[in-house]
């Protein structure tokens, strides 16, 4: 059993969000609530199902994280990119930045 958080996209603007301990859906993966076992993960999904009914989010799913520092970080590249945005800067942005 890996440590997990639940992620989704906001219904209204599509942005990537994570469920925080406060019950809010937030943009920062590092602040997300971490489930350390299957029961906790189940509970995250349960609360996500409520958020679907409340029209806050779409498509919730669990992602594996490492939480060695206490702050969750995505394991898979795909989720790292969802958490921090594209790894490539669009043309008008300073590429060095």
């Amino acid at each position, binding site marked *: 059993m890996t440590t997990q958080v639940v992620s989704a996209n906001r219904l209204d603007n*599509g942005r990537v969000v994570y469920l925080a301990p406060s019950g809010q859906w937030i943009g920062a993966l590092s602040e997300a609530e971490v489930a350390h076992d299957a029961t906790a993960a189940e509970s995250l999904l349960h609360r996500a199902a409520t958020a679907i009914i409340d029209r806050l989010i779409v498509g919730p799913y669990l992602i594996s994280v490492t939480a060695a520092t206490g702050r969750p970080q995505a394991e898979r*590249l*795909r989720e790292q990119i969802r958490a921090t945005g*594209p790894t490539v800067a*669009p*043309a*008008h942005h300073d590429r060095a930045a």
Partner: protein
Amino acid sequence: MVAIYHYDDADRTLVRERVAQFRDQVDRRLSGALTEEEFRPLRLMNGLYLQLHAYMLRVAIPYGTVSADQMRVLAAIARRYDRDYGHFTTRQNIQFNWIKLEETPDLLHDLAQVDMHAIQTSGNVIRNVTADHYAGAAADELDDSRIYAEIIRQWSTLHPEFSFLPRKFKIAVTASATDRAALKVHDIGVRLHERDGAPGFEVMVGGGQGRTPMIAKTIRDFLPEHDLLSYLEAILRVYNRQGRRDNKYKARIKILVHDLGAAAFAAKVEAEWAEIKDGPLGLPEAEVARIRHHFQPPAFRDLDAPNSLHVAKARIDPAFARWLRINTHAHKQPGYAIVDVSLKPVGGIPGDATADQMDALADIAAQYSFDEIRVTHTQNLVLPHVEEGALHAVWQALGRHGLATPNVGLASDIISCPGMDYCSLATARSIPIAQAISTRLADLDAQEDLGVLGIKISGCINACGHHHVGHIGILGLEKNGQEYYQLTLGGDPGADASLGEVIGKSFSAGGIVDAVEKITVAYRALRTPGEAFIDAYRRLGPAPFKETLYAAA
């Protein structure tokens, strides 16, 4: 008047009603009256996907023709609803990456003001019809392929019988001997040619990319103009009835054509066609003339004594001379040229354009190209009708906005899908690989020496980046959480189309850039004078390239 199809009232009403309908659907979704399961197909019918970071909107650009005014609206949309940029795709469309659902009805309303929309850019329908991006301009064309693309667009738009096909369906049209639209990797490719002075079509069926790439088979050499729509209808009917609906991966027409064999498939089409060929789908000459009227050539000036200002300027400015050599193309009207606008700056993101660049292009098109811009399937843009005397000014104006990279058709003119940086289906990133390769191969003299070389990259087996038909194709995959890249050689999208062959074991992200460079080195050593990469590969086969890549490893 711009040579572009002008909407009549019926088209306009349809698009506006669709916006109003979608606004209502979005309201009902946001208020909870519709569930996501109910809403998803509705939003996809309007080109709205949910991607990695946000909603993504795909806007149709029929046969890649955009007016200056439309381009300005695309720029305004990029500013108002997105993050100041858009991505031009291999399907001659544009995608916006950071769209909010709640703002989409307003965005679609803005688009409709210039007769644009996102209808049939998604779903199992006949998608945006693509055509030769030099249509109406190329010296080597027989006719303007957009006339037939538009006829097909009108027939296929909201076609009641074909709104639930087994799978998506892509049609491309050309009207010249040079295939600039990758006909043979489309569900249907239609090529206009002439027999005894009369126009007719070669019809190719069952090409495609994705996980099972195939080259289309010609099932009719010469179809009279009059029969175009009835014959297409017959093909679609056979596919609609017999295409596999049980398995999404076997649902494209290419699988049906392959399983039945081209001859048996053609026989079924002919049988179906026999029933309907004399029916209402016949294409009267008057109707073709009516559509043709929308694609009148612009008011070219009579330039019998060509203005050779550009020739003189090229003599003293080698950078301009290079751009002329590489980024301009012969026009059918004396004294005019076609200008390729590269969206592939070294180290840049293939196909991306900023709002400022779009506005600049609109201005340049308004001043120098009769208001017209084209989108190419290679993710570049085109100014189709530029007076030769204005080429130097156009080059300078493009250069000021980073749009004059002289690399069209060369190694750094890379096709790349969005890959894992944006796409939820991706198995690996593709843009950073494109950036690293174009940076590695940046030297312009060396690129010119390499000649025509198509490097094409996809971030998963769906092959949106056309890697199967890349001279050098790259497919991004994932194993144990690591990105790795499979290399194919010998693909080609042209009239003599071929699919690339996997050359050996895959490479890491760093390794693939080295591998591409090694292939270019090997090709230089092995070619005969003047021999293009693809010809050298076809002559030599994979062996010498394998040796360079894997020897002593």
